[in-house]
């Protein structure tokens, strides 16, 4: 998964790359952290990833985030593909839970909007780092090792067989 520094690009575009505003952007994240994700079963893990990515897509559904939006959709599609290999179609990629109501969206282009979007992007990048760490514990990714060896999908399928056998 190619690493894209959307946060840096956004902060540069919006003129937020100053020490004071940098601190404001790097607040606490609402998304699951590594410790939470690593204990999740694979399917739940993937579903969490999918739901979180979709939630971010919803929050960043503005023209200025068009490229990032496409990128997130690509990640979500890949995760859903893996989930569909494990689960029946409707349940594979559930819609993001509307467990919390989104706060009122600030005016696009306002100062609070800039800070809020900055925090979301920062949270997303932290979340994806956490996802990457968990996936590392699953084995080599297809790109890093010989493709004939175990891919992520093989790992998942192997785990499903274990679950069924167990």
């Amino acid at each position, binding site marked *: 998964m190619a690493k894209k520094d959307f946060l840096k690009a956004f902060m540069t*575009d*919006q*003129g*937020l790359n*100053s020490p*004071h*505003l940098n*601190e*404001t952007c790097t607040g606490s994240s609402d998304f699951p952290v590594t410790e939470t994700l690593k204990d999740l079963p694979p399917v739940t893990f993937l579903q969490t990833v999918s739901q979180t990515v979709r939630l971010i897509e919803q929050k960043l559904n503005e*023209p200025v985030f068009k490229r990032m939006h496409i990128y997130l959709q690509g990640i979500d599609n890949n995760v859903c593909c893996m989930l569909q290999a494990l689960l029946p179609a409707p349940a594979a990629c559930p819609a993001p839970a509307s467990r919390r109501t989104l706060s009122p969206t*600030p*005016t*696009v*282009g*306002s*100062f*609070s*909007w*800039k*800070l809020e979007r900055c925090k979301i992007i920062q949270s997303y990048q932290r979340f994806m780092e956490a996802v990457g760490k968990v996936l590392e514990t699953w084995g080599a990714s297809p790109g890093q090792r010989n493709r004939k060896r175990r891919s992520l999908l093989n790992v998942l399928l192997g785990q499903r067989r274990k679950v069924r056998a167990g």
Partner: protein
Amino acid sequence: MALFLNLQTVFLLALMHFSTYRTGSSEYLVYPPESINVSIRSDEQCLDIQWTVHLHNYTLNLKMIFQIDIYRSTLSNTVENKNYTTTLKSNETLQWCWHSVLPLECTSHFVRIRSMVDDERFPESRIWSSWSPPVVSKGQESSGEFHIFPNDIMYAEEDSSVTFCCISRTDNDKIEFFYEDRYMQGIKLSSRTTMFEVKNVAFVRRQGSNAYCKLDSSIDGVVLYVGGVLEEPKDFSCQTRDLETLNCTWHPGRDTLLPEHLPNNYSLFEWFSQKKVNCVHRNWCAWQLAPDMQDTYNFTLMAENKLRKRRTSTFFNVNQQVQPKFVGEISIENVDATEATLRWQIIPNQKNLTFLCQIEVYDNEKGIEYNTSNSEFTLSGLQPYTAHSVRVRCCIASHFWKWSEWNSKNFTTKEDTPSGALNIWRIVEPVSGGYNVKIFWKPLPTFQANGKILNYSIAMETLGKVPKVDIFFSDSDSNSTEKIIDEQPYQISVAAINSAGSSIPSVIVVSGNTEKSIQNIKEDRVNGTRDGIYLSWKPDSEETESYVVDWCNYPWDAICDFQWQKFGSNITSAIIRSAAFQSGVRYNFKIYGLSTKHEPYLLAKKTGYTQELALDCKPEVTVDNLASTSLTLNWKDNCTDEPQYGFFKGYHIYKKPEVEEPCDSETEKQVFSDNIVVCMYTVSDTKQKTFNVKKLQPNSTYSFEVKAFTGGGDSLAGIIKVTTGTHENTNLMMTIILPMALFSLLLIIGLNLKIQWVKEKCFPDIPDPYKSSVLSLMKFKGNIHQAILNTSDCIPDAIEVVNKPEISKTQGLRTILVGNEITTPAYLYLLPVGKDALDSQACICFENFTYCQAASDSGSCSQNQMIPTDQMMSVESSEHLLKVDKDYIRPFGNTPAGEEVSLNYVSQLAPTMSGDKGNSSPNLPEPAHCSEYKMQMVIPAGLALSFPPEGDRPISVASLDQLEKPC
């Protein structure tokens, strides 16, 4: 109804009566403002003030003035004092918005209002009411929250100033303000509010500039969007293409650079119809017309964004702003060889509109323009079988607005019979039994061919007794044909044929007689230029229809590219030009007259070059008959009159003398580029290979160059260098001069030897004292140095110079006499040191007789006795001379034979001459006539001892013994 109105007026006046103040004898109308409401419109930074006046007064349409005072923070800080004038209307809430530089949330604002009737009907009522109680618009300074105002987002134009304020939670919190990360100082408005002003804001990025307040770790900010000033739209105009849709365009001016979500909005408002359209584009907008309802339109274009509004208007009759447009392409019908009909359709097609259409037709060469008001047009006079391009555009004839776009189409006219006749000519060459006739023709130009030429027909008709016609055809791509004819004349006709018909035949009569006359005509040479070759001929009889000049472009080639050119009967000269003409090629021209019976006859033959070249040859030169003033040059070469170079005209002989000399009358002076001057002879006979050069200088070297020349210049040179012989009298002169010279040389040598001999005899070299034999004797006595007098140690008393005073040189008190500078003998007088220096014994004259002693025997010495020449000195010195002569010579004469003679040297140093008048040292005797000592000499010791005793001044003569002591 009128009664009702009257009653109403009376009722209202009665009401007025109750609402007046009565002060003494006067009555005033006073209506204080009521229900004052103050609110903040944050997006406009505007304090919205609304109030009312008692309801029943509205109907009076009273003119009133309201004075509005606005205070900031406290009632003592007035920031606005406004007189608001209005005419009261029914059911209207009075309203005024005050724009504040400082965000209104930053601090509380107080408003109070008072009023005055300002109506001409009640002049006595111009009295202010009492102030209303102040109404407050509360700021956020006491909210206990940390804020920046304006909040979140705001807009400003470039170069404007923007004011922010930061409100702290508690009193005197330390608040920092940053604009684009630049820390800025503020002005404290209150314990919790600080104002910051950013002047001349500039555009930084489309995403806005960030301004924020920082309180501890909290940050609250606002994004300031800085945009360019919205410009008024320019060149706003509307037009229609079809009277259904109006298209309005304008130039919006420069981009304001505001973000996409804050665009500049443009809208069209039409005043007659009161309709408004929001424009999608920033530089044009469409409007649907109602053609039968409205002809005149008054549009206002409004441009606005968050910061500014602009507007511009246009007023027009839509029928006068129509740019027609074509429906489809124009059609071209009924095309034949010279005509074609155009048709088109154009909109708007309302009957009341008339059009003016412009048609332009082009063929390969020219364009023709036509105008019409119809929708069809027939073109005529077109060139057959020619591609044409036609284009049409139209405008409204009644009121020109704009042309439509051009509507273009191409077409080709049909073929027609060739027009004109072929240009033909012939070559007749005799062959056995007749003549070979070559007929040439030039293809018809396109404008005469009128179609594709299929072939050429050639008809040969005998003009002899037996009529005979022979017709044959030649291909379309040919331009000549060949036929052998018999002796009788023939009339040959040539015509070009296309699909539409045949051209007019061109006729020429061919006869062998013409060629027979060629031999009798002499060929003339003509001069060419870079432009071509000029030909002229004598006009012939009146029956001459025209003249023809023919030639070959490549005369040396088998396919000579035969050419001809026809001229009218009134032309007798021409410059023949051809792209094929080259320098150094001889072209042969024949000039014919062409009779009215189409029979050619030869008039002249010409030959020439466009530009001649130098011959490519080099003469080899030899010399014969070389004499002192003439010689004969001979040369061999392969230079010939070849047509490849130029007309061989002879030779140039260049004479270059080694020593420059003038050119004689037979030569021509030539100065080359390197300034070398040569004399040139011209030999005009190309067969002459020898040339006698005369008038040369004897015993001189010449360089001769022989070059063949043409009109194009000289060939390579044959060069020879010749030195002419000695003059004939020279030998005779040499027989006389040489012996004389030898004799003279021998005489000089003999004389020289004689002089040497005389010198050796009379003037032997002065011996070196160190090498003297006397020294060998002194060796036995002791120190050799005591025997030699050092000249520098001895100072003579005085020496008088009898003559040659000019050669003495003074040096301090002494005079140095340079003996060898004296060319004539001089008498020297040694002056005795006495009070009277001019005593009889005062002068002793020395002459270098010392060394004469040896020579005295020969008698030659007596010749050295010289007489002073100085007249002044000779008066007194004659006696001294005799005495000295006596004193001086005597010891020599008295010296007995065999007696040892001691030789003494006299110092060459001399005292100051008495003749130096300027030098009068008291130590020296004066006058001192005899102070010069010319020559170092040796005197007998006896004589030296006879000098005055010691105590007198020392003299310059001392014996060798005395010389042991310093002088």
